[in-house]
């Protein structure tokens, strides 16, 4: 029976093929928009999740709360300095110190996830407000649930060398020696090309970004001056290459890396850090652990912003979700217009075929037969539109995904990451996600919408009195 209805409906659609196709086109556009936007949205979501997966969900990221410590986060370059720092030539030391101070002042505060009040007395190590941030971190490191910690502190420093005519103002990173090994995912691109990395025993040694080494014309064993103190060059980093996913220590090419004690000897402010990582042991509840970390720092009078990869991921996910919802709603309007088109076409069809309805009724068609025929016809319009719309949506989102990946950095991620004192290594690749669920839902939705659009017209056709229908010219 259904097959007969389908055949009859197909024939009637084919007869009015131009109008049928135009009607279908309305659905195609709507469905394609919905599918494309959802697929892109899902793709973004997934891409974000993947990035955080590579970071690992066992890691807590610590950044000092804004204003507590000078130079607490990554310095951003002053506007009159080229991004990534530069080597300045021919400027007076006063000018340079002014620039340096400006650069510090422009530092961004760690703003995310702050203002959460620590609740519940979780067991915390005994700390006091005479302890430095670093000491608090170390006391946390002794907890059995903490696997490893690492910290870094960033300053902007004046650099000179024999081979350099002027003075360089560059980013100086002080960090614990084992950090690149303990948190390799954050240090992608931090590879030693020449020489060696420093150890905890080293003090006035420096590892140079390749750009710094080239501009200063120095090699392994040479000496450079940082803030007037001589440092021995022991390592030069590899040329940074684009890596996918994960965060790095930031721009490495024009940075200098020294042991934290060496940096403290230049800038004072003992025991401060800009950014620290704390990895909990497997099986530890990270949500409890992060609260414990916050509590401990608060107790020590050093309120800190601490977050986990999953919290970051959730926060970004929530933002993306609301964006996706808005976009989908707009696409939904397009779909609604398509549905109204189907309704209009079906009304026209009922009107045009009034006499045919009369004939069908004369040869024994019941009201429900007529209703069924028209409903199937409008459902077919919806379904065909839906199927083509899915195909078009796949095409559009694939293209859009490629364009977005190629031209834009992943705004949201890099922004949040920056506020955490991190930098996205590069824009994530955006691959639209087509779950079978999405495709089935799109097809199902267009079928149902098509049927719904046909209900009123089909009802009108079904209820036509046969005599009236037969007399209709």
């Amino acid at each position, binding site marked *: 029976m259904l097959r007969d209805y389908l055949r009859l409906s197909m*024939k009637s659609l084919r007869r009015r093929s131009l109008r049928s196709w135009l009607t279908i086109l309305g659905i195609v556009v709507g469905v394609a928009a919905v599918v494309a936007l959802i697929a892109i949205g899902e793709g973004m979501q997934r891409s974000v999740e993947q990035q955080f997966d590579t970071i690992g969900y066992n890691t807590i990221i610590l950044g000092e709360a804004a204003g507590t410590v000078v130079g607490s986060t990554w310095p951003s370059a002053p506007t009159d300095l080229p991004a990534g720092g530069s080597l300045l030539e021919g400027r007076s030391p006063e000018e340079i110190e002014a620039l340096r101070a400006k650069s510090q002042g422009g530092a961004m505060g760690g703003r995310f996830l702050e203002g959460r009040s620590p609740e519940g007395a979780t067991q915390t190590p005994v700390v006091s407000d005479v302890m430095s941030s670093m000491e608090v971190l170390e006391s946390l490191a002794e907890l059995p649930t903490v696997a490893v910690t690492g910290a870094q502190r960033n300053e902007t420093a004046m650099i000179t060398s024999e081979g350099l005519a002027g003075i360089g103002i560059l980013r100086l990173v002080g960090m614990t020696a084992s950090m690149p090994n303990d948190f390799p995912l954050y240090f992608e691109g931090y590879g030693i090309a020449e020489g060696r990395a420093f150890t905890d025993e080293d003090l006035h040694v420096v590892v140079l970004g390749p750009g710094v080494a080239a501009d200063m014309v120095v090699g392994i064993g040479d000496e450079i001056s940082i803030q007037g103190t001589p440092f021995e060059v022991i390592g030069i980093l590899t040329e940074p290459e684009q890596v996918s996913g994960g965060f790095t220590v930031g721009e490495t090419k024009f940075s200098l890396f020294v042991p934290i004690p060496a940096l403290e000897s230049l800038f004072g402010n003992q025991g401060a850090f800009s950014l620290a990582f704390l990895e909990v042991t497997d099986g530890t509840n990270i949500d409890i652990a992060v609260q414990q970390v916050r509590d401990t720092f608060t107790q020590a009078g050093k309120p800190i912003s601490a977050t986990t990869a999953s919290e970051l991921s959730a926060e970004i996910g929530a933002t993306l979700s609301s964006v996706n919802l808005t976009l989908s709603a707009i696409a939904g309007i397009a779909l609604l217009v398509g549905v109204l088109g189907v309704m209009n076409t079906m009304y026209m069809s009922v009107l045009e075929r009034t006499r045919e309805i009369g004939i*069908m009724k004369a*040869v*024994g068609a*019941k*009201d429900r037969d007529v209703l069924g025929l028209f409903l199937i016809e409008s459902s077919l319009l919806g379904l065909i539109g839906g199927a083509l719309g899915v195909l078009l949506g796949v095409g559009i989102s694939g293209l859009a995904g490629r364009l977005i990946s190629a031209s834009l950095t992943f705004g949201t991620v890099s922004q949040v990451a920056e506020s955490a004192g991190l930098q996205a290594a590069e824009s994530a690749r955006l691959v639209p996600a087509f779950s079978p669920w999405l495709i089935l839902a799109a097809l199902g939705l267009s079928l149902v919408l098509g049927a719904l659009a046909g209900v009123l017209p089909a009802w009108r056709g079904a209820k036509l*009195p046969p005599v009236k229908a037969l007399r209709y010219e």
Partner: protein
Amino acid sequence: MIEVQSASRTFTMGATQVHALRGVNLKIEDGEFVAIMGPSGSGKSTLMYLLGALDKPNGGSIFHGDQDVATCNSNGLADLRGRRIGFVFQMFSLMPTLSALENVELPMVFQRMPHAKRRVRAAELLELVGMADRAKHLPKELSGGEQQRVAIARALANDPDLLLADEPTGNLDSETGLQIIELLRQLNLERGMTEILVTHDEALTKHVDRTIRLLDGCVSAKGKDEGEDGEQAPIAVASSDGQEANLSSGASASSPSCSSAGGAAHA
């Protein structure tokens, strides 16, 4: 047997009431070939719709066997049409998107007959009306006469008791029209099928057993078939009090038989 008992049908058009039928009584025996004649506005189309269970009377009854059209709901009427009545309309009554064969299949589709079975039957019926070689053609590829043959085949699809033909020759030239009437007559004789022919073409009356004449919504007493065979068939006419009177062929009454009070249209 088909029996119409004081059937009336009134249409409301705006503020006016149009009395299309004013208490019609008639009987049609099984196997009869009857013509219903009358000028425009006489109510013959309305009567045909009532006989064909396409419409219900406002008053009175229309019995197909023991089933009263007046008491059927819309599904019941559809069943009656689908199983017991076949229709041949004046023109353009074939579904334009369906081939001749598919048009003949259509009534069987609505009776839920299996596909293979109805294919075979449709082909047989097309053969019967001499259209076997045109089975795959669409209506627009067929001549008027051919279309009516297909329509007749379709009317026979569910093996009805009654075939109703509404001006089946109206759009045909006289020769083709004659062929169609002969086909209908042949089906009536060979299959013993009751047939009612609604027409205003006086020439067709000589092919039928009996002619019922309608005038102003009533059966006219001058309804007796005056065909060559002289066979007498009873005609039921209504009297004003709804009493039936069987008039013989010899009845000379020439005035409308229903003299219901206010017989003139009270529009």
